[in-house]
């Protein structure tokens, strides 16, 4: 593996709030072309890891490299996003007062320089918006206010918005939370379609079955550290993981 294969490389990351340390000397690697699942019990530090990656939270020490060479220490959210890190939040966050088309349009313009972002859309750009709408299954409701969409559609719209910026890494925080079975399948198909050698996808999810379906390998976080890493089948049978997920009571006893 060479550096150019590395989508995200985290080295010795420490994050703490006051005296409480959330991530402890964490080192982690995600390669291009990979769909990586991140699982772990509540409070393991999954969302904090995403926060640190996207510039939402400052980290005390350690380094994060994006696309093999960009150290993002001290960079703010927009700068990191332009390096190609797109993040979907746990709670769908879209511009509910704007139409679906406008949402995608904003996302398309966001990554560009200020002056470019106020020009009229080119036909090529319009086509891209339409293509994405088809991909996320929202081509029928381009004119609708995003606030009126169903929960699942909002999640897809948010993923669609991320795709507009041609990201190197997609960070999906609980993409199927609150979805029904059919919607889950659709989401899994969407992730499958997005998968490619130019992109790494990170899925943080509680739904093990979903993780097993879409992910190539899984990282288990526990207490701010990596417990196990590997394909889902191996991880499932790992006694430590079973202990963390099921054996809480025996630990306390």
């Amino acid at each position, binding site marked *: 593996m060479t550096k150019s294969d590395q989508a995200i490389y985290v080295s010795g990351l420490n994050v703490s709030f*006051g005296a409480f340390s959330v991530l402890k000397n964490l080192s982690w690697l995600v390669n291009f072309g990979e769909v990586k699942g991140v699982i772990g019990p509540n409070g393991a530090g999954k969302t904090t890891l995403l926060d640190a990656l996207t510039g939402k939270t400052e980290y005390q020490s350690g380094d994060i490299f994006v696309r093999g060479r960009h150290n993002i220490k001290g960079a703010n959210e927009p700068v990191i996003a332009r390096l190609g890190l797109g993040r979907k939040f746990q709670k769908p966050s879209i511009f509910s007062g704007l139409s679906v088309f406008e949402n995608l349009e904003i996302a398309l313009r966001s990554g560009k320089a200020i002056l470019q972002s106020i020009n009229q859309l080119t036909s090529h750009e319009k086509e891209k918006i339409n293509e994405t709408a088809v991909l996320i299954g929202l081509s029928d409701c381009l004119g609708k206010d995003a606030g009126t969409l169903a929960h699942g559609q909002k999640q897809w719209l948010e993923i669609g918005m991320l795709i507009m910026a041609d990201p190197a890494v997609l960070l999906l925080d609980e993409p199927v939370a609150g979805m029904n079975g059919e919607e889950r399948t659709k989401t899994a198909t969407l992730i499958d379609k997005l998968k490619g050698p130019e992109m790494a996808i990170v899925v943080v999810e509680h739904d093990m079955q979903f993780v097993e379906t879409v992910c190539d390998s899984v990282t288990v976080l526990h207490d701010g550290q990596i417990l196990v890493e590997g394909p889902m089948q191996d991880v499932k049978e790992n006694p430590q993981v079973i202990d963390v997920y099921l054996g809480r009571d025996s630990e306390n006893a």
Partner: protein
Amino acid sequence: MIRGHSCPRFFREMAKIILSISWLAFADNSAVASDHFNKISWIEFRNHFITEICSSKPKRMKAVLQELGSFTVANQDPKVIRERTQWATDLISGIQKKRFRCSKDGKTYLKREDKFLDPVSMAEIKIGDAKYKAPFLHLPVRPTLETILATSKLINSLKNPGTLDLSQLALLEKKPDFINTDQMAYLLKSQLSDSSRERLVFVRAFKMLKSENIDEVSEALRNLSSIPSRKTLTAITKVRKTIDPVKDPELIEIADNAIAEISFSIQIGKAMSIVYSGLSYSSILFLASIGLAIVFGLMGVINLAQGELIMIGAYVTFVIQECLAAVFPSMLPLYLLISIPFVFLITGGMGALIEFSVIRHLYTRPLMTLLATWGVSIFLINMIRVSFGTQNLEFYVPDYLVGGLSVFGDFLITWNRLATIIFAIVILIFTLFLVKKTRFGMNIRAVTENRSMAGAIGVNTRKVDLLSFAVGSGLAGLAGLALSTIYNVNPTMGTNFIVDAFMVVVLGGVGSIWGTVFAALLVGMINVAVEPLYGAVAAKVLVMILIIAVIQVRPEGIFMMKVRK
């Protein structure tokens, strides 16, 4: 507190020792002076005095007035002295009011209540057709006339030992140069209270500064340097310029030392009084903004009517003062203490009403709350304006809050400001206790931290909101009570405090008590320290720059804890 008191006491003791030494030294001189005047009799002198006054020549008038001063005290018998000072008082007032008149052929009279009296014997006389004219009082004569009159009145007021006509003493302090040395010596010999003696010695030192006698000047310098004030500094600086450096090098040195000592003390005094009034302003600010800070932390809402709650607090205090004056006048001096529960409950109740009727409905719209509470604030201002008028309220200041302890230079620990500071400290302790130790405080902290979680584990968040808002409003009302004897109280006074209170909240950080304390001290100190030098605008600009600088680094205020959002 204890250490703060011991320092001024030391200075007071020192001053007393110096004063008593100088008094002993002065008592000697007066004995010599009195002998000279015994050579002519009192009656001869009176005739002489009248002739000299009738001359209308300023130099002769000044001289004879001083002689009169000396003559009044040139006797050991207090009765005689009282008689002479009475005569001096009568005659000099007569001269001042043009009731004393002379004719060209040397006849004189003093008019009292339509009766004509012989100025020497004070017996009633008949006056002829001769033309009488009041002696002309040239401008240079007047200060001497006034001073001798004041000193004579002072001596005359010594009937009861220890009492002194303080208004006359104040007159002397204005014009120390014209005081008669013998009269002054007599005054200092008699029984006086410490504070009056101190003032007299001080006055005399001013006069002695101009003396030809070098010893007297140097003694005066030493006396004065122990009482640092701006007035002494100007006097000494003036004298310093007239001293011949070749003739009296030692005197120059003494003067320079005195100047240095006084300027230093004045600087320290100035710094102390800035810190002191800064503390008292900070106390008010703390009281005004602690409620804002807690409520902002809890509900993300700023109450623009907070300034008006301060104002209402002051008005409630006023009403209670008026009620006491009408019903229990004997309790009036305690009205500030009596008002505390009333103010807290009434303004707290109003706060609860505001929360219940307005804020509660704007839960998720904090910006709209700003407008709604502004609406409430203009309602309150105009309610008070219509019922009380726009003029400043007259507050009765109880004796125990009048004046203060003079500590150093121009620095005075005024009782009313001290009371404010202590009051704020008590409230701070009360608030800390409330928030850290009670169940209610625990609920406040829980809801501030995570509203939905607190609600889920059974905290009645609505009730917590209501109560905290009420307590915050009550504290604002207490701020109004605390400032009523220091600042102007009128319907629009709230606006003056609200902007500073905002700055405190922004600087201190949301919902942090210690942050609020710190920011109130900072904002209060900057305001008080910068305002006299560069004006109120500069102080506000400085605070504003500070705020903008702080939020660049710590957007949530200085004391905000770091948490995951």
